[in-house]
């Protein structure tokens, strides 16, 4: 009986974590925390959307041009996977525009120049590119916190990630 209950908890934790990875707040909504679901959804989707709008799809979810940013964004898989697919499609469109099959090496100056010129209208430059990267990376990392919180709430029956602090504060306050 206890083993079955532990199994249920694990399944709920995996489900909540996975749902949060796909859509910020979805795991909390599934667990019945509607208010927190709304907070997580808004506080993670907003910076992600702003970052993507400032950085542009082409480079913001492109592991070839910015692998570390992509890695940080993987925290919000439900947004980053479609963005990656769209980014690759846009990259192919740029290559078609200049009649190339793959991004050229910088050594081939003519091809590289034409390629970068075609690419430029979809690219973000300083200062927007800096702000975009900070927003996107922060959104991805914040969703990791949201995933941990959803897992914690699924395992403890509604207590947050840092529930030990919360319980200690309540004991000190006598509540």
């Amino acid at each position, binding site marked *: 009986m206890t083993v079955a209950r532990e199994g249920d908890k694990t399944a709920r934790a995996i489900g909540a974590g996975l749902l949060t990875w796909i859509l910020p707040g979805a795991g909390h909504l599934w667990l019945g925390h509607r208010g927190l679901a709304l907070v*997580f959804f808004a506080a993670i989707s907003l910076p992600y959307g702003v970052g993507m709008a400032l950085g*542009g799809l082409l480079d913001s979810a492109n592991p070839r041009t910015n692998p570390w940013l992509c890695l940080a964004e993987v925290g919000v898989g439900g947004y980053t996977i479609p963005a990656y697919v769209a980014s690759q499609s846009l990259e192919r469109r740029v290559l078609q525009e200049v009649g190339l099959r793959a991004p050229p090496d910088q050594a081939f100056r003519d091809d590289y120049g034409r390629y970068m010129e075609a690419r430029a209208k979809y*690219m973000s430059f300083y200062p*927007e590119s800096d702000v975009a990267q900070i927003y996107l990376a922060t959104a991805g990392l914040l969703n990791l916190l949201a995933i941990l919180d959803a897992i914690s709430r699924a395992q403890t029956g509604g207590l947050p990630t840092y529930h030990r602090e919360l319980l200690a504060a309540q004991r000190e306050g006598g509540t």
Partner: protein
Amino acid sequence: MTGLTGALTIATWLVQPLHLPTGARLWMLLPLVACVAAVYRATRVRTAGEMPWATVRTFLSIVVGMALIAVAFYVVHLAARRFF
């Protein structure tokens, strides 16, 4: 129709990057700090109802802390220019 227009507008924003107005870069800190404060606080409360004041306090702590760090760096910069 309105939905489709909205979706196309959003897609255009994402394909062609938006530009920030001059001087807006520093102010972009505030919404991001608000989001960080909200998520940080959400991982420390039982329900969303306990969040508002704690989030405001966290938001102010981060903004004031970062402002103090900026001032400290500026003072160090001035000192370096004057004495070295």
